[in-house]
């Protein structure tokens, strides 16, 4: 009896001695598991990662090949508007861009979220309280026009930024159901409509 438990003990102990890295990762996962709780709409499940989130969770980016694989996979999630209309109301779009609320445990509902675009981007001529995590989008439409390619790319980028850059800092607004199709249309107009303050002083 004693012998058996000794052997079992050794078997359990040995892999730890061989593979330090794996062991730390297992401990890390256990730590995450016991450190969080559900509060309001922010359910504890949110700490469980999607595969690409895991691949983008270290100091170094994944290999080029892995990034390309993720991007191809994310590209498949993009849904273009069924009615073929890409541009909504830029005035509504501006409000969505400014509004940084949504999906925290102090928000009442997982719907009616803002886009939080100003947290990361410069956009219009008049709003000077903008973040710099993303590139400036000032005069976005003026600089690029609104040819089909630009329109489709912009829609795709807002819908799922990871389709173009696997580990982008930018959220997957459409794919992760942060914003609705209508809201994305309004944001598209904010960026591309010549009358929008993004393009007009």
């Amino acid at each position, binding site marked *: 009896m004693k012998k058996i438990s000794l052997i079992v003990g050794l078997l359990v102990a040995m892999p730890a001695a061989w593979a330090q890295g794996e062991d730390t990762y297992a401990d890390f996962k256990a730590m995450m598991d016991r450190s969080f*709780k559900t509060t309001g709409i922010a359910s504890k499940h949110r700490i469980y990662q999607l595969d690409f989130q895991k691949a983008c969770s270290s100091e170094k980016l994944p290999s080029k090949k892995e990034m390309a694989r993720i991007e191809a996979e994310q590209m498949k999630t993009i849904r273009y508007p069924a009615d073929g209309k890409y541009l909504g109301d830029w005035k509504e779009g501006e409000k969505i861009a400014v509004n940084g609320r949504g999906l925290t445990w102090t928000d009442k509902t997982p719907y009616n979220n803002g886009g939080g675009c100003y947290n990361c981007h410069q956009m219009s001529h008049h709003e000077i309280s903008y973040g*710099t995590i993303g590139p400036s989008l000032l005069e976005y439409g003026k600089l690029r026009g609104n040819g089909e390619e630009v329109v489709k790319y912009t829609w795709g980028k807002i819908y799922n930024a990871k389709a173009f850059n696997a580990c982008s800092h930018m959220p997957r607004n459409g794919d992760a159901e942060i914003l609705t199709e209508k809201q994305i249309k309004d944001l598209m107009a904010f960026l591309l409509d010549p009358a929008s303050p993004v393009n007009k002083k």
Partner: protein
Amino acid sequence: MRHTFTILLAGFACGLLSGTAAASSEMDAIAKYRELLADGNPSELVAAQGEELWKTKRGPQQASLERCDLGLGPGVIKGAYAKMPRYFKDTGRVQDLESRLMTCMENLQGIEPKSIVDGKFLKGEREKVAALVAYVVTESNGARIDVDMRHPEMKKMYEMGKMAFYFRAGPMDFSCATCHGEEGKRIRMQDLPDLRTQKGAAAGWGSWPAYRVSNGEFWTMQHRLNDCFRQQRLPEPIYGSDVTIALSVYLAATAKGGTMLTPGIKR
């Protein structure tokens, strides 16, 4: 004194709201604000409450915290926070200041940690912990950040804290590194320290806990991290949980050699 203070506050808030200034305006404003309050940090009030609490006999065991060991021996407060988090032999755990204070409150005074862990920030016993924190960290103001990384448990917490820092999850795919992983970035007008570097971590770790001018509240490091996890759209970290301590070890170790400016003053 109180009067001047309110006026200063109003002036400061207007400067921020009008938003006419350039990118570095907030840093300048804070630097100026710091100067103005150099000998009158509003945290002093909280710290004074904390000192009183430290010395008062409380809890089922009617004891004070004067024999609480923060790592430098029972009752030694001076410089203790600059060396935290640290591995504590008696509990066999790495602890940050707040989890250590809970240990002292439990062992010396008989106050159940559960009432604090399940409580709310700025309320009840957790608010008392915050006052104690203000007192303790004031006694490390100006000290060099000097966490002792020799113990294997500290090394492990550092590794896990680093993993937590880069851990992307939740509906917005954010990690700490999304907002604190590059130099010179900001969200709206708020400057974000690059917490991967010694300089950034020293500025970030070394100026917390802090008094927040925008809402007139004193926030501990647990409170700061809690709000960052909220902005990250993750679920809520449990008060004093290992992920918060691991992140603190990662930040403090990265900040090593910097100066504690505690309690800080924030926007």
